[in-house]
């Protein structure tokens, strides 16, 4: 039987969308690639530090298995293990592929790929192209996609925004509704399957390290259409960013990977020039509190430490909530070669040279571990069946998700340089499965009645007409700022139930005011305002998912920290004790005297907490808000245990 000619719509041209497009094209399937802006300008270009793969070029004994362990431990065991494992095992192949595609990765003296240290691991596992790795990776994929475009397999719809999926009566996704951001018209595109590779939601905080299009709006729209959203409350706060009105610019973890040290003056109110503060008056708190990992503890740990030092202990530089990130001990040529990109950013935005003066940094919203729930199929041997149509499919059949918009690789906290990996990995993984899905469809897109598309288009036409008629008193951009401020104040590093409850009320207030918005510009041509109002609506819903998930999760896990529920790990606790405890338990009740004082009680607390909370949060849209339920995590490979980085 001749195979039906297929078409897939990919939304988003960051690393995930581009790699999915490239892979799908290799099956000679046509792709319509939709993106807010030219794909080459996608948010992924911001990634600085690098991409992980356990290639072990430095003879440290690294391996994909260790990478896997570091990843699930870093994520506080909330990641699905076969997926994380498969990703780590694919890491080396992905780097080799990107290398073949011409990415200007830094090299060793022998001309092989060089690797550097990153957070949450003791191995040099991060391949990098200066400090603009994301840009280099995007360009290489963009180039391959351009090649497929020349061959007629890819049709790009840049300056088009995804509004929603076209879902038929049986709940199957049959296409996508997109909005031409220039001409202003709305069109429904028929497709055999749709991929959302639309990135993260940092903009709901208004100020973050994210780019301006990172509103999470596409994911929220899928959720509003019934797709499950998972682990929303896990928002990564990166420890090191610099202030700005429009953006909090990141100073990559690679700065610490290349020797950067975090410190504050030991004495509050010590306002001396940092270079004049002698070693003994400097408090290198990460190094002192975590001698093993030092400055390279995972991000959740580092951000909490900084929070503690500046807010609880009032040791922030000049009384401000900032700390020093110091690279002044490294030779300027070394910094230029390995960190040029971020050194440049710091110079351009602060006017100061990090090779001469310590940088002043503070934590900022950075990444969402959570995202659209997607499926996968294990191969029964602790890895993923790469041909399965279930891989990366959301709970709406035919609607897939890849990249930061999905949820299941990083658990409760993502390790640095694992995101670029998961973006490319999921993009490539989608290929074979989605093509099989299309082949298996009972009917292709051409057999779907056109009335379905007409109706979907009409709905969105009406929605936009309604938005344009909004003539209230609220400015949508100002309201967005307020939304961001609300979340920045209450849903950040340290969370409290009382404040989270207030935030939910606050969100209701913002939603009420949303109805009173004025659409500032009602013209048709290249008018971003109606589009933004629609995004704002979606952002409000996404904020609810995050806040409610955080409110209900009464524990501390990875980036989600509620002091009230801290299990207070005793000093000198060794995670292996817990494994030992689990073992001994099988032969009778463990005895107090087998463990240092307090340890057994802690392990019992830990065990009870795991029992209650080691599960995936699922949000589903019901009655204008998220209904939260929980699902099991696939823990088939390693036993979860208390995390420790000292």
């Amino acid at each position, binding site marked *: 039987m001749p195979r039906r000619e297929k078409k897939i719509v990919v939304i988003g041209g960051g690393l995930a969308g581009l*790699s999915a497009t490239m*892979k799908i094209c*290799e099956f000679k399937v046509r792709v319509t690639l939709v993106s807010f*802006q*030219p794909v*080459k*300008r*996608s*948010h992924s*270009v*911001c990634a600085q530090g690098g991409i992980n793969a356990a290639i072990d070029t430095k003879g440290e004994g690294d391996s994909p298995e260790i990478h896997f362990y570091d990843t699930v431990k870093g994520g506080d065991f909330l990641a699905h293990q076969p997926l994380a494992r498969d990703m780590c095992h694919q890491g080396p*192949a992905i780097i*080799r*592929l990107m290398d*073949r*595609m*011409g990415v*200007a*990765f*830094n*090299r*060793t003296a*022998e*001309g*092989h790929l060089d690797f550097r240290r990153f957070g949450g691991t003791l191995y040099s596992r991060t391949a990098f*192209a*200066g400090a603009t790795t994301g*840009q*280099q990776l995007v*360009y290489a994929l963009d*180039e*391959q996609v*351009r*090649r497929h*475009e*020349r061959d007629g397999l890819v049709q790009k719809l840049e300056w088009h925004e995804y509004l929603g999926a076209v879902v038929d009566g049986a709940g199957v996704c049959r296409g996508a509704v997109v909005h031409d951001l*220039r001409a202003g018209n709305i069109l429904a595109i028929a497709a055999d399957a749709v991929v959302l590779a639309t990135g993260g939601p940092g903009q709901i905080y208004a100020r973050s390290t994210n*780019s*301006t*299009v990172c509103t999470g709006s596409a994911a929220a729209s899928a959720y509003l259409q019934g797709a499950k959203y998972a682990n929303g409350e896990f928002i990564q706060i990166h420890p090191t960013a610099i*202030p*700005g*009105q*429009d*953006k909090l*610019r990141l100073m990559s973890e690679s700065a610490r990977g290349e020797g950067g040290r975090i410190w504050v003056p030991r004495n509050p109110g010590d306002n001396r020039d940092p270079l004049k503060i002698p070693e003994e008056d400097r408090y290198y708190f990460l190094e002192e509190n975590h001698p093993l990992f030092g400055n390279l503890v995972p991000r959740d740990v580092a951000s909490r430490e900084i929070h503690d030092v500046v807010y609880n202990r009032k040791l922030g530089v000049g009384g401000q909530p900032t700390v020093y990130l110091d690279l002044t001990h490294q030779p300027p040529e070394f910094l230029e070669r390995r960190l040029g*990109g971020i050194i440049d*950013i710091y110079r*351009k*935005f602060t006017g100061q040279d990090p090779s001469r003066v310590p940088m002043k940094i503070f934590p900022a919203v950075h990444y969402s571990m959570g995202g659209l729930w997607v499926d996968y199929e294990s191969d029964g041997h602790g890895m993923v069946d790469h041909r399965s149509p279930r891989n990366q499919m959301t709970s709406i059949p035919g609607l897939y998700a890849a990249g930061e918009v999905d949820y299941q690789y990083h658990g409760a906290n993502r390790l640095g340089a694992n995101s670029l990996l998961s973006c490319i990995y999921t993009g*490539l993984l989608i290929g074979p499965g989605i093509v099989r899905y299309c082949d298996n469809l009972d009917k292709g897109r051409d057999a779907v009645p056109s009335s379905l598309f007409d109706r979907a288009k009409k709905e969105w036409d009406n929605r936009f007409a309604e938005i344009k008629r909004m003539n209230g008193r609220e*400015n949508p951009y*100002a309201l967005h700022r307020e939304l961001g401020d609300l979340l920045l104040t209450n849903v950040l590093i340290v969370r409290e139930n009382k404040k989270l409850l207030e935030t939910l009320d606050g969100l209701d207030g913002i939603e009420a005011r949303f109805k009173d918005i004025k659409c*500032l510009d009602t*013209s048709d*041509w*290249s*008018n*971003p*305002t109606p589009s933004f109002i629609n995004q704002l609506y979606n952002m409000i819903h996404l904020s609810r998912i995050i806040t409610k998930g955080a409110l209900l999760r009464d524990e501390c896990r990875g980036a989600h920290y509620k002091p009230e529920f801290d299990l207070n790990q005793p000093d000198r606790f060794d995670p292996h004790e817990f494994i030992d405890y689990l073992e001994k338990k099988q032969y009778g009740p463990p005895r107090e005297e087998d463990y240092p004082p307090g340890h057994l009680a802690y392990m019992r607390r830990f065990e009870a907490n795991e029992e209650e909370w080691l599960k995936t949060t699922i949000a589903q849209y019901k009655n204008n808000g998220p209904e939260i339920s929980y699902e099991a995590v696939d823990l088939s490979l390693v036993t979860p245990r208390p995390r420790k980085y000292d």
Partner: protein
Amino acid sequence: MTRETIALKIKRQDAPGAKPYWNVFKLPSLPHANVISCLQEIQRNPVTADGKTVTPVTWDCNCLEEVCGSCTMRINGRVRQACTALVDILEDPIVLEPMSKFPVVRDLQVDRSRMFENLRKIKGWIEIDGSYDIGEGPVFPEKIREKAYALSQCMTCGCCLEACPQFTLTNDFMGAATFSQVRYFNLHPTGAMNKEERLEAVMKSGGIADCGNAQVCVEVCPKKIPLTESIAEIGRETTLQLLKNLVLK
């Protein structure tokens, strides 16, 4: 230099072909402000200095840290990225205009698709066999890598084209960024396998021969891409290619 307020004088245009006009806005001057944060402030309060409520100004941006290439415009007469244009070091009033060498879409937005088309013309990619795992890429020295990296940071912003006297709204001159990309792909051991095709692509009308060597391009490039070197090298290579073609034909 701290000022209490800052004025923005912005050249606007509602659509392609429409008549441009100017709006002046007065804003409070905030710490760490850049041109983008000012434009965002105008979105929150789109009222001109003389009290008229207008539509918010439109512009392109994304990364806000000078790596996506979106936000190119003319600021106080000079083409540059708006995200790195810090208000504190700009002269008051800040005059914003769209680039003049690309068709205006609306206000400060322009259409730069010509740049992407040029990348297609020069076959700006490495011809890999496929994305399956067939082992390592070519081993090559860090020195070459450094050279390539300097070129690979070109973010297709168009500053070099806006400044170039040869590049106009209506001609087909490819411009420095494109020539530099030819050099970039030809530097890579695998890329070099298609070197001649790329050289041929810049030997046609609008190609390297039209470059007047004015070298203003290199002065305005925000990423400090060594454009002069690229132009010289591609110039040499195309001359050689021309000779080769003569001999072989």
